[in-house]
């Protein structure tokens, strides 16, 4: 079994921690009620095409990870009551990602497996999302029935060098 197979198994086990963290971060940040309509998936890599993509790196001595939060323009308009520029979006949704990481590090099942990872400052991009060679867990949190935010968290063992 490869390291990443092992990570996939662990991610399946701690999947509820990710779902809870995403819902909690979204609800506390924007004052909306979130719901889960589809089960979250364990994937070989995070990929997709979204209008707004926010990423935050996570790391400790054993693991490196990335959180990706993806949101479509119409959802941004609804939740911020305006379209917003790149900076304004990064400000609000970067903080959402920051909060997600904080809540996730409070989840004992997750930290028992991976330890506490420290987060970087958030980054903003648009369009294609592709994170190779890192198994991930991903899914959507809905609000107002049809609007959603997509969360993905990919993690792999830290490369220790030769």
């Amino acid at each position, binding site marked *: 079994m490869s390291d990443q197979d092992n990570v996939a198994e662990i991610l399946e086990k701690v999947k509820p921690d990710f779902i809870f963290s995403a819902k909690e971060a979204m609800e506390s940040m924007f004052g909306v009620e979130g719901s889960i309509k589809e089960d979250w998936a364990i994937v070989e890599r995070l990929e997709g095409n979204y209008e707004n993509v926010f990423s935050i790196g996570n790391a400790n001595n054993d693991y490196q990870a990335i959180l990706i939060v993806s949101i479509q323009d119409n959802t941004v308009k609804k939740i911020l009551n305006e379209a917003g520029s790149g900076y304004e979006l990064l400000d*609000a949704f970067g903080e959402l990602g920051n909060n997600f990481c904080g*809540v996730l590090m*409070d989840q004992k099942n997750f930290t028992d497996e991976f330890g506490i990872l*420290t987060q970087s*400052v958030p980054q903003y991009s648009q369009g294609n999302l592709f994170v190779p060679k890192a198994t991930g867990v991903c899914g959507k949190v809905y609000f107002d029935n049809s609007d959603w935010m997509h969360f993905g968290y990919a993690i792999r063992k830290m490369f220790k060098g030769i």
Partner: protein
Amino acid sequence: MPKTVVVVDDSSFLKKQLVQFFEDKLGFSIVGDGNDGNDAVDLYKQHQPDLITLDITMPNKDGQQAMEEILKEFPDANILMISAVRGEAMLECMNSGAKGYVEKPLKFNNAEFVDEFKTTVSEIFE
């Protein structure tokens, strides 16, 4: 006279919420707000407020570095860390002289969270 506070966070979205909370719920006077650790050090020197709040993860200079610089010059500074960072960094801040630590997310619509936040601030001035 109301107590004075400087609020420092790289998120304007959150900074607005914090400023409003300190003004409306705690009766503080906001004398400055900043976006990173460099702003924090400059604003503290300029205003020497009763309290400064610092995020940890910020660009240019993080909150932990800013805290150390402020305490070096002003050892009695009241510093409240407000961050989503958990674990060692949180402990290091408390051991290095921060007077309190509030964990993000900031749930200002949750009465229990608001009470805990108020208690943390009032304990700094006891």
